[in-house]
């Protein structure tokens, strides 16, 4: 069977006809396999959902009980048969519980990698290369200008700034699911052991990470803290909150933003960021190209992001590549709206 007959882009998402399921569908479907818990990939309203336990837990946390009619959890490496295909989930290194989904039909294996990164992350299982015939890669940072560098170095810049401006609060914009917990873990690894303050929208997901055994040290809600007590502290908040009236509770805040987009200066300036931190949960250009090569795939399908450059690069390496027209996926850092749970802040 040709690869495009095994997995086909459709308006609802990537559809597997021989297995009769969708991967990360953007509309309600009967059977969905979900790569990870970010809202553009993990939507409510499907019939049956197959995902890792963590992803299922996060969907429940975000959408509430009954986000799907039925759920089934799968372990990394476990193989399941669905209709005419077998599927297995493998660590994607993106956020806790994130998975690449390998779909095997006859002798052909396609890996839908979802969002992934090959860089170290203390809050999730490391990315695993899955050899395959067709590799479906994201291209969020699919331009050679995107090189994320060493996250620990960026954390050191944040800490140097805290030391230089002890009378100011440092407000770090970070996506609530994954990025925030990774920043906290990196701060702890760098020896920062003071309490870290959190925006209310991050509270439940961060507690979930802690419940899965990820050590994050002492965390406090920013709401209710006295302004003068926030001098010299670090607070994490959803990116949109860092330009909100919510920030008025902080003494002369230094606004930081942890995102791969911060590599391009205009991006930080447009958002009024003072301290851009290049820390991303997506693979950078070097990561994308190294991963593509490591899978051994001869055919590359490129989705959401800067497809052109990556497709061109594949061509220069003798790989067959094409953009896969899938709509509805964005980069979580680029989302401007506050996550729905922001209402936890109660307009304070």
């Amino acid at each position, binding site marked *: 069977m040709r690869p495009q007959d095994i997995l086909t882009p459709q308006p609802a998402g990537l559809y597997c006809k021989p297995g009769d399921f969708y991967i990360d569908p953007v509309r309600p479907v009967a059977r969905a396999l979900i790569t990870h818990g970010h809202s553009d990939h993990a939507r409510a309203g499907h019939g049956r959902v197959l995902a890792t336990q963590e992803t299922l837990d996060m969907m429940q946390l975000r959408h509430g009980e009954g986000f799907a009619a039925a759920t089934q959890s799968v372990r990394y490496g476990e193989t399941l048969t669905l209709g005419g295909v077998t599927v297995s989930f493998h660590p994607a290194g993106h956020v806790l519980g994130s998975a690449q989904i390998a779909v095997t039909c006859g002798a052909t294996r396609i890996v839908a990698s979802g969002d992934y990164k090959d860089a170290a992350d203390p809050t999730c299982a490391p990315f695993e290369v899955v050899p395959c015939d067709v590799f479906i890669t994201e291209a969020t940072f699919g331009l050679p*200008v995107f*090189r994320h560098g060493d996250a620990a170095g960026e954390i050191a810049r944040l800490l140097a700034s805290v030391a230089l401006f002890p009378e100011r609060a440092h407000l770090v914009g970070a996506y609530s699911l994954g990025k925030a917990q990774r920043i906290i873990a990196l701060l702890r690894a760098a020896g920062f052991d003071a309490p870290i303050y959190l925006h209310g929208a991050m509270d439940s997901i961060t507690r979930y990470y802690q419940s899965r055994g990820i050590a994050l040290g002492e965390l406090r809600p920013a709401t209710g803290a006295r302004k003068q007590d926030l001098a010299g502290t670090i607070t994490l908040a959803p990116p949109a909150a860092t330009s909100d009236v919510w920030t008025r509770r902080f003494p002369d805040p230094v606004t930081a933003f942890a995102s791969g987009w911060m590599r391009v*200066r*205009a991006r930080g300036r447009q958002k009024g960021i003072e301290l851009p931190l290049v820390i991303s949960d997506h693979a950078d250009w070097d990561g994308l190209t190294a991963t593509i090569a490591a899978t051994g795939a001869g055919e590359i399908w490129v989705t959401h992001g800067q497809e052109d450059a990556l497709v061109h690069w594949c061509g220069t390496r003798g790989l067959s590549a094409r953009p896969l027209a899938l709509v509805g996926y964005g980069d979580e850092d680029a989302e401007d709206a506050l996550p729905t749970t922001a209402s936890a802040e109660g307009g304070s």
Partner: protein
Amino acid sequence: MQSFAHLIDRLAYEPGRTNKLRLITHYLAETPDPDRGYALAALTGALSFKHAKPALIRDLVAARADPVLFALSYDYVGDLSETVALMWPADRRGRNAPPPPTLTEVVDTLATLPKRELPAQLSRWLDDLDETGRWALLKLITGGLRIGISARLAKTAAAQLGGHDPQEVELIWPALAPPYTELFAWLEGRGDKPVSRDPAPFRPVMLAHAIEDADFDKLAATDFAAEWKWDGIRVQAVTGRGDLGVPVTRLYSRTGEDITAAFPDLAPALGHVGAIDGELLVVRERRVQSFNVLQQRLNRKTVTPKLIKEFPIHLRAYDLLAEDGEDLRDLAFMERRARLERFIARLGSARVDLSPLVAFTSWPELAAARADPQSAGAGADSEAIEGVMLKRRAAAYVPGRPRGEWWKWKRDPHIVDAVLMYAQRGHGKRSSYYSDYTFGVWIATESGDQLVPVGKAYFGFTDEELLQIDRFVRANTVARFGPVREVVHEEEQGLVFEVAFEGLQRSTRHRSGVAMRFPRINRLRWDKPPRDADRLETLERMLKAQPAGKPDADAADHDRRQDIGNGPTELL
């Protein structure tokens, strides 16, 4: 280089003046000589590297990177140095991971490196630096630092290192040269205060704020003296006694650049020891000529006798900063003025005269004079007047732009309604916005009315308006030419700008035959259909009504004014 890179990286994002000062002072305290001195030189605009041009950087990246990937990246980032810094494929093969270069190493090497060796040297440095280091290196050597730091701010940060008043640093600054080891020794209490040995030193100039309507309520007319604001070049003419008592005369631009050599006809007129603050003008048959005429005399490689004869240069004096070794800057303006009047009389030169005071007793009276300088005593010179200057009678001469002492009150700009025709993407922080606009006015043609471009503007609007225009451009594009989009401009469909400008000139380069000086977007006229925008005839009438400059002056050359008058400026 890396620590300097981190400094300017952080400064580029930091909006607050106090925080910028803290960052620079911290860097200067932590960084050893001579690196910090070269950093201070870079921040004050005292470094330049003549061989490093953007074309060279393009060549470097072309030799290393896939052209398609470079083009896609450049299009995305919008800034050449930044694109190259980010995507540079470092080649460290066969090299024993050498440490990245220091700022001093870069400055020293480039000072003596033959041009042909520059590409290989730059490539090695780019290999050894990280993304931020590469960005800083490329910005530094191409002279495009643009991080919103004025020389004044950098000097203030240096002064803070030793708890000194920035004024003290300003006063000795002309005697200093990179890497300023003497200065740092004094600031850190390890050495004596450096002294100027220059017999004719530059003194940092005092600048004016633009006055707003609301300011007048807070100011008493009787506290101020007024002068005409001349449309020339601000200069400082200094004469001192050098070795063996030989007089030395120097002419400085407002930033302290020595421009004496360009005006050999003026120096002999400045025989007395003193420092005059004034305006450089061309005067023909006792009439001050417009800036368009003065421009013909500026930035020439060689000053020919013909040029001197055709464009006789004059100095119109409005302040005296020193006389016979006495510093007058602490005196009140009116006291200095009295000294200046005597000084100019003593010079007795037709090349140097006084900028007259404009008599007034109330703001409305001054407003009338400003509106009609010709009848208010300026006579034929009114062509070269762009407004009035207000100077507090009791004010000392304070370098920089002290609040409330000097004000400039320009004549009202001209205004027309024009239609947006083309939009081009900006650079730097505007790289993702269509922020450069070509606009046009209506002319009658055989096939009916058409728009003809009359100018281009890229400022005057707010950030919010920029977003609105950007959205309009993207939603109303009718054609694309590389980075330029043609935007719909029909009689009933299109966007009207109210464009303000300072003057008009005939131009052979524009199809419309006219060119605007300093055009800017004054207002967005969403309410106005393009058919109601102005016609070329309106501009023709304005051109006839305004005092004539040299009729064939080429408007496009006006940018050259920037070269002589301005040092590093704050980022817009």
